[in-house]
């Protein structure tokens, strides 16, 4: 575990100007803008809107029924990045929500009470239905109970059993499939006014698989040295389309094909990833990161790593909306079973021992120099047990573990100086270990 060491004075690594701009970024921006545009006109166009969560989202199903998803978690993180979350959280706390609970929920409630203006500044349509995919996080249940109180709209819930031992039993899968067949699909059909066309669903599931193949290649590109991607700070952009409204669309297929090409091109040029201030130069530390990032100071947080030459080669946060690099792909030959398997396999739906195994695997396969846990106050699903995970990983791998604390969207819990000091000490610990190993 990281201990306080004197702060050292090592010069920051120099960043290089990018040689080629990533056009995938522009593509993603356009996709998002188009989606919010559709949402802005959903009511006048008679399109039904479904609010749902990222882990265990059923995007292919929604697309097959021409329903438009809104993801409150994404609104919350966008509010954090746009420096709106502090106000929204204050609004929710003023209305009686406890300071102790998840700030995503409070940010969303505060946003709702402040007019429900989304990331593009346009008002979000109210939900016609809340699709509660209860996958990997208890707070989801309460979140949609709270929203139901506000919107007075129907809710359909999908209980996804937890995988305590990292095994999907036939009973778990059957339970999810039966709920999909008997409750979720009929509710969505009623909302959309049409019967589910299985061929259309399969078409979208096929597109999902294609995008997933390319995303895995993107993740695996980080095995190369220097890594062409940052699998955490950059990774949160890479997961944008596939974790949200676009999985199962041709747009997502095109995006991931392009992104993969960009990574491969960077490997050929021996280039590192983009950072907020240019291309990363020397990569001094290869890290695996567990836990969500902080959004309110996201660029600053990223810079703390980039200027030290620390690149994240794999992260678990980028697996919350789907874990693909252990082999899962959407399989159109078994539409309901594959959706069940997807939901069951999301990262936060896995027991702690399985999470430790996965992190260990990342540390070894990506030849990491260390692993770092960003423990966020909001999220018991992620955070409870992380200190034991840290110990276990140190014991198993021998690489140094670091531990920092912050929050997702509550700026009161992001202490820049504190985190910076801890990171400095942590990098020093990795240096010290290297010296010991090479001596």
């Amino acid at each position, binding site marked *: 575990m990281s201990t306080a060491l004197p702060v050292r004075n090592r010069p920051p690594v120099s960043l290089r100007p990018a040689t080629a701009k990533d056009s995938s970024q522009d593509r993603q921006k356009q996709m998002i803008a188009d989606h919010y545009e559709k949402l802005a006109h959903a009511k006048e166009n008679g399109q039904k809107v479904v609010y749902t969560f990222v882990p265990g989202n059923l995007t292919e199903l929604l697309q097959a029924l021409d329903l438009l998803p809104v993801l409150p978690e994404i609104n919350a993180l966008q509010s954090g990045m746009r420096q709106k979350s502090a106000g929204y959280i204050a609004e929710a706390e003023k*209305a*009686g*929500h*406890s300071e*102790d*609970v*998840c700030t995503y*929920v409070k940010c969303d409630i505060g946003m709702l009470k402040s007019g429900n203006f989304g990331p593009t500044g346009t008002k979000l349509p109210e939900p016609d239905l809340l699709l509660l995919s*209860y996958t990997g*996080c*208890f*707070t989801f*249940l*309460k*979140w949609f*109970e*709270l929203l*139901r*109180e506000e919107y007075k709209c129907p*809710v359909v*819930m999908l*209980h996804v*059993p*937890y995988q*305590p031992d990292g095994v999907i*039993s036939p*009973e*778990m899968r*059957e*339970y999810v499939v*039966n*709920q999909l067949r*008997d*409750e979720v699909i009929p509710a969505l059909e009623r909302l959309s006014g049409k019967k589910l066309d299985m061929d259309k669903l399969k078409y979208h599931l096929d597109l999902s698989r294609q995008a997933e193949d390319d995303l895995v290649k993107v993740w695996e590109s980080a095995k190369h040295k220097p890594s062409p991607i940052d699998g955490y700070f950059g990774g949160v952009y890479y997961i944008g389309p596939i974790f949200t409204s676009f999985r199962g669309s041709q747009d997502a297929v095109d995006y991931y094909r392009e992104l993969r090409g960009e990574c491969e091109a960077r490997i050929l040029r021996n280039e590192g990833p983009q950072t907020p201030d240019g291309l990363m130069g020397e990569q001094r530390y290869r890290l695996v990161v567990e836990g969500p990032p902080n959004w309110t100071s996201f660029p600053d947080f990223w810079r703390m790593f980039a200027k030290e030459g620390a690149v994240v080669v794999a992260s678990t946060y980028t697996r919350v909306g789907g874990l693909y690099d252990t082999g899962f792909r959407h399989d159109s030959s078994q539409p309901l079973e594959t959706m069940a398997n997807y939901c069951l396999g999301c990262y936060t739906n896995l*027991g*702690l*021992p399985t*999470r*430790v195994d996965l992190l260990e695997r990342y540390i070894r396969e990506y030849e990491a120099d260390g692993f770092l846990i960003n*423990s966020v*106050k909001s999220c*018991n*699903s992620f*955070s*409870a*047990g*992380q*200190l*034991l995970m840290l110990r*276990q990983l140190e014991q198993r791998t021998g690489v140094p573990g670091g531990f920092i*604390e912050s929050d997702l969207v509550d700026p009161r819990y992001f202490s820049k100086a504190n985190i910076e000091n801890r990171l400095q000490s942590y990098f020093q610990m990795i240096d010290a270990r290297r010296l010991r190993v090479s001596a």
Partner: protein
Amino acid sequence: MAETTTQTPGLPGADRASQILHQARTVMDDLHLGPVQRWKAAHPGGLAIGYMPIYVPRPLFEAIGCLPVTIFGGGDQVDIIRGDSYFQSYICHIPRSTIELGLNGHLNCLDGMVFPSLCDVIRNLGGMWKMLFPDRWSSYLDLPQNFALHLGGKFYAQELKRIARELHERGAKAYDPEALREAIRHENRRRLAINVLDNLRRTEPWRLPTSDMYVLLRAGGLMPALEHAQMLEEFADAVRARPARPFDNVRVVLVGAFCEQPPLDLIRTLEKSGCDIVDDDLQLGLRYIESAIDDTTSDPLEALANSFIQYGAATASRYIGTAEKGAALLEKVQATKADGVVFAAASFCDPALLDQPMLEAALERNGVPFTAFKFSENTGQFQVIREQAGAFSDSVKLWGTVQ
């Protein structure tokens, strides 16, 4: 103020009710689980299976020769030395003290642990347990949140079969429907005995303060249902027979303390502040099923699973899909003729604290006064709570509302 004419408990000459209370208190305070050890000695081959709040289907365990043992952490009796190093400051207290008890050997007499799906902390604690104690059996118990019998009910019955199978592989008796019917009968008898005491507490709260009721129920978490039922029945007779003086207090329902338990002194503080607690969700596990379970059916395991689906109490950890949020609490307020509600949630308790605003809104809509505070199982200072509860009870008494 609630007051009983309690003589020195445990000493010869104490009235029978006080003696029973003393016994229950001894069971409750024994962090080394002496009563469990004695049960094991008297039942060779029997397994003691600990479980975290709120609820597990106790009759299933009893039917296969296991003693289900509620583990409520270390309360205010344990110094946390190692437990704190496993949890960040923003996580509630019960997992720390439970880890502490596990690491310092207090739970060694347990042959296994069950972690029901109450919240993400208990869920992850289950994973930690597997890593910390890899040689001991432990299991997550996924309680369904889908309440259709053919969906959640079916899944839950399969979960119960799995647990029974795994325990049988570790020495428990094989599942036998007749044994389960018998265990259900015992649980129903206990439930009835609890109902009798609950009614007594509602009609004559000065005769049976909640602080006493709490001790009686807490002890039951470490006892077989039949033995506990007999104890409660005997206590009910004895407590009716002893003299008690009525007091004119405010009647309150206590909500939010279903998992991490407040110190007994906190409950007493509320009582001393002029609140008769006429209903509560402390020890909810023994009251979770709000009806008798069918003990005549040919498939008692299905009946047990269905009882959870059909008669499970509305609490923060249970998803409320269609019913109005807070309706169950309002019913309780009406049924117990309560004047108000006291919310007491453990600090950092996600289920309770996320639920609370919805319950408060329901109370507000219906003009039911309430007050709220947070606690930790090792809270030692009650002054602020005493003042808050005192002001609440005075206000409700004078104006029927909070001023």
